């Protein structure tokens, strides 16, 4: 079927499949210190240069988010306010609001002291390089 063949061509489908498999892997549920149903949801990736933490946390201003590192723990704190409307009544209230505080334990090789963060389209992205001593290096061999 056409759908089957397009499956591996569509990068979004490939990503969804990859994330789903990580979900189902028991080892994938490792380090989120504050539990998987806490707001905001966190994904941790490994890349060639280090680690990438992505957090879905829409509708804030960057100033409303504080990121801290201690050892290999990354902590993300802030608050999201519920809409404040004078003389209005809620028909639906599904969006999460309140104070949040998530801690993510990173692998030993991570160096959060050199981490960089960006916030775009409501997604917080923290890039954490590997420690210099943890970076894989090729060792040249000299002949005699």
């Amino acid at each position, binding site marked *: 079927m056409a759908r089957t063949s397009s499956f591996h061509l569509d990068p*979004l489908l490939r990503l969804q499949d990859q994330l789903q498999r990580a979900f189902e892997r028991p080892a994938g549920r490792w380090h989120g210190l504050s539990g998987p149903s806490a707001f905001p*949801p966190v994904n941790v990736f490994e890349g060639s240069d280090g680690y990438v933490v992505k957090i*879905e946390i*829409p*509708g804030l201003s960057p100033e409303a988010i504080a990121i801290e590192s201690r050892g290999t723990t990354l902590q993300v704190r802030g608050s999201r306010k519920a*809409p404040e409307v004078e003389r209005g009544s809620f028909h639906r209230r599904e969006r*999460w609001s309140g104070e949040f505080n998530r801690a993510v334990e990173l692998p030993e090789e991570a160096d959060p002291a050199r981490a960089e963060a960006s916030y775009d389209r*409501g997604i917080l992205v923290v890039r954490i390089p590997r420690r210099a001593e943890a970076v894989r290096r090729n060792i040249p061999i000299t002949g005699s």
Partner: protein
Amino acid sequence: MSQANRESEREIERQSKHESFKEEASSVEQTRAGRTYLSRVDIVETEDGLLLWADLPGVDEASLDVRVEDAILTIAGTVSPAGYEDLSPLYTEYNVGNFFRQFRLSEQVDQDRIEGRVNQGTLELSLPKLEKAKPRRIQISAR
């Protein structure tokens, strides 16, 4: 708040497949393969109209489609898989997908005056009421 007021918008389709923070849309709503999530919304009614906030993390202005057709408000947003190249997941709490949500608007909403903007993955829509649908204070005079 009267029952009539609560009917200012009604949801078209709702289904339940929960992840921690995201609920997948039903297959009826999907025209393409893969996961599509229901955008979480807050809706407030005031005297002047409805205010709607919809969370669409990963969606920007250009990839957002908001339309009203036959009194049905549709919010659809597509996310890009860019930014995931060469990354392999170690630990995951959410999946990534497009967003969708539909509401049937009541006749009170002035469909020509709906306005919106996106701020960091949250859509803010203002749906004013028609003048005739607004509450009016009747002046009572003493004799």
